């Protein structure tokens, strides 16, 4: 269930408790009703810009408002039950007086009251579930399309990350560290989607850090941070007039401190930028939390909880390889024995992107030939392995796919729409989609955007290969 676990019985008890203490200034102890989205909604409705957390008095008033609205809805179903609740708790009449008014016995009134609370709980329960679902969908819609269909070997890290983010106190930053193509973005995405089901955060912002458009070189840290704050403001405040950098920081600080937000900064490439970002976001945290994915582990800045991604072990690498092979229709590799998998693993190690690309190559070329060629490059840095894989993949591409791929460095992190893809590739609508499909199946093109607006982009490693090896851009 989305949000805090809730049972009808628990809700009934809480409703009764709230009715009994109707006139109290604040709820006695912790009341389940306070945690309902319905209740929070009722508070926000009265004071949309109020700070967080709300005072006990504000919450009590919200609870009462919520109950009154629910009684009004109950009245449409059963007028008598509604009347009993209204008279007994809102007006504070004793049972005997209520019984007299309704020409009923006290036993009958007691029965009506019990049924009324049950029915009221059912009304609130249904509304709460619907609200939670709506809230979750709204939060989820802010996320880019997940870059994976299934995670391998990351369940424990995901659990740790979720737990850390749901802690009400520090660490305020979850830092996911690892080399390119190791799965940082996928892990961050999985953690965020899980965290969102708890409905603890007001909004989620997903920011993808960019590099210099021409060279792909990382931006200077200060420029990068300014770019990030611009993205934050755009996602949070679409209707404000333009702001200067100082104004933006002030605006963000106030919003992030007023209510808890979850901000993802994906793909920090250098030590300097990671350190700088972690230093600057100090003024934005608490209760807001950040997830930062980077290639290096920062040593200064706001208190962080670290998740360091290493290569997959053999077992998970095998699972990923077979799963991906299955997904691209390569049944033979999907069902291959351990010996075959081990041969691949000896070349790619547990690098997820490399495993996927080798599987994609094997759809067309003989696996031994692939491994033989790539095996020579494995003794060097991981970048050499990727370069060799990319070259292999490039040579296999159709002309149309090459026309599209070589132009993709012109596309920013947000991805491009089909119209722009056709323009930069020279392809037509008829020839574009087969090229897109081919590149996606080879793990060379990433699908982003939403169901209604698909956008296409490339991995940073792919861009780097294209610029240096194919386009020859200096």
């Amino acid at each position, binding site marked *: 269930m989305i949000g805090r676990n809730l049972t009808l019985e628990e809700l009934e008890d809480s409703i009764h408790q709230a009715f009994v203490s109707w006139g109290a200034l604040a709820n006695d102890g912790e009341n389940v009703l306070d945690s309902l989205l319905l209740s929070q909604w009722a508070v926000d409705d009265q004071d949309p810009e109020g700070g967080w957390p709300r005072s006990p008095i504000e919450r009590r008033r919200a609870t009462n408002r919520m109950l009154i609205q629910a009684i009004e809805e109950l009245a449409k179903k059963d007028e008598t039950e509604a009347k009993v609740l209204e008279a007994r708790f809102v007006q504070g009449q004793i049972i005997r007086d209520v019984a007299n008014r309704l020409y009923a016995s006290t036993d009958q009134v007691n029965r009506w009251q019990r049924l009324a609370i049950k029915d009221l709980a059912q009304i609130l329960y249904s509304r709460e579930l619907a609200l939670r679902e709506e809230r979750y969908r709204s939060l989820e819609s802010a996320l880019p399309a997940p870059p994976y269909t299934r995670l391998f070997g990351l369940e424990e890290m995901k659990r740790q990350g979720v737990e850390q983010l749901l802690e009400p106190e520090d660490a305020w930053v979850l830092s996911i560290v690892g080399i390119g193509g190791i799965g940082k973005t996928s892990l961050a995405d999985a953690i965020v989607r899980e965290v969102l089901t708890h409905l603890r955060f007001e909004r989620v912002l997903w920011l993808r850090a960019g590099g210099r*458009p021409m060279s792909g070189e990382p931006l200077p840290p200060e420029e990068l941070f300014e770019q990030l704050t*611009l993205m934050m403001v755009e996602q949070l405040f679409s209707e*404000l007039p*333009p702001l200067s950098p100082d104004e933006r920081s002030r605006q963000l600080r106030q919003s992030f401190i*007023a209510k808890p937000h979850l901000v993802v900064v994906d793909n920090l490439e250098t030590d300097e930028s990671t350190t700088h970002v972690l230093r600057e976001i100090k003024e934005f945290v608490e209760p807001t939390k950040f997830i930062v994915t980077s290639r290096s582990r920062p040593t200064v800045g706001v208190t962080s909880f670290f998740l360091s991604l290493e290569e997959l072990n053999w077992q998970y690498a095998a699972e990923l390889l077979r799963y991906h092979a299955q997904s691209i229709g390569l049944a033979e590799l999907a069902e291959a024995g351990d010996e075959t998998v081990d041969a691949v693993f000896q070349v790619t190690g547990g690098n997820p992107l490399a495993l996927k690309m080798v599987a994609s190559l094997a759809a067309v070329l003989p696996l031994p030939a692939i491994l033989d060629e790539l095996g020579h490059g494995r003794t060097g840095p991981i970048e050499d392995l990727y370069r060799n894989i990319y070259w292999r993949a490039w040579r296999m591409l159709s002309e149309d796919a090459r026309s599209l791929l070589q132009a993709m460095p012109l596309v920013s992190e947000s991805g491009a729409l089909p119209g722009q893809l056709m323009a930069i590739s020279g392809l037509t609508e008829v020839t574009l989609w087969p090229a897109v499909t081919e590149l996606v199946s080879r793990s060379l093109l990433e699908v982003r955007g939403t169901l209604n607006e698909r956008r296409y982009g490339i991995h940073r490693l792919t861009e780097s290969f294209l610029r240096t090896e194919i386009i020859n*851009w200096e």
Partner: protein
Amino acid sequence: MPSAQFIASLQANLAYWSDHSGLTDPTAWPALDRERGNLFRAVIFGLRQNKTWSKAAHLTLSCYTYVFERGYWSEWSAVLEQALDACAEDDLAVKARLLNQLGNLYRKQRRLEDAQTAHEKAQALGSALGDTMLIAQAQLGLGRVYRRRLQYDLADNYASRALAKFEALGISLKNAAHARNLLGVTALGRGDYEAAATHLSQACDLFCQAPEPVEYGRTAVNLSEALGRLGRVDDALELLKEAASIFTQYNHQGERARLYVSLGFLHYSQNDLVEAEAAFRKAYSPAMRRGGPIYLRAVTEMNLGNVLLQQGCIEEARDYFLSAVNGFRLAGAQTMLANSLDGLAETTLAAGDPQEAIALYREALAIVQAVPEDAFARRMEARFLGFIKELQSAIDADA
């Protein structure tokens, strides 16, 4: 040297964005915001290659209105700087246009020295080319810079020279309207409300003919202030109503706050305190309360402070004045800072602390004495001097 195929993709990409109707259609700008990264990449890549520089430079120039209105000043300044670095020595006309655009973006970022330098360079290039339009645009830019500095004589001088050139050219109503608007707001700053009303009214007519509805709306708000000062309240209210309708139609939410502030001030000047407070509170939207543009927020807070002070709500007024003072300090808006210090001093006095009030007045006095051209500053100077003398006498008498 990049591959021929990539150069072809670059050229196609530039053509794609040059043909994109969203650049000149404000209703398409929210969607274009999502594409901004791709548009900027097209320009940046294109500027780096000789074969594509010219097309990229023209696309750069075409993006100006979108970038300016959407507030991407800092990001785009870097692009313009890059375009200038790569500009061929003999492409002086394009260089001058880029410099003028850059000057305007620097001004929006309060980089007034850089803005002045950029416009002066553009003016020099325009003179070398004998291009009247370029010179006029540079002079308009310089006028705006001087006005921002409250140097009204210079602002007036440059605005007049720009206007004369635009009118002589007779080809750009929009530019002439901007020059008239600048003359109008400069006159407002000087306290010459008749002249302000004349210029602003003419600016409105020109924007109407151009047609530039949003600019017309903005100028109408300026004109309403001048008319309000002249006691023509009904005319002023009509203009604000018209402007509100335009901003709604063209979805310019950012202008609405400024409009409500003007409306509130109009009511305040007529002593309609309840109406004034209602308008200021509309300007003080939830988004504005969370932050908003510092200057506009501070103006709103200062006005709320004034109206609440008049209604005897001293504590609440004081909170708004304190916030406004902070805001104007950050924004570097000296006369408004002095005005807020004035309000704060009044609340301090009402709370029974004349010494502290005197200190605030002294601070405000030092500020207004530094800007002798500003009519508002001159009025405040006389007022502050009077208060300081009166309060000091009272303190001395008690002692």
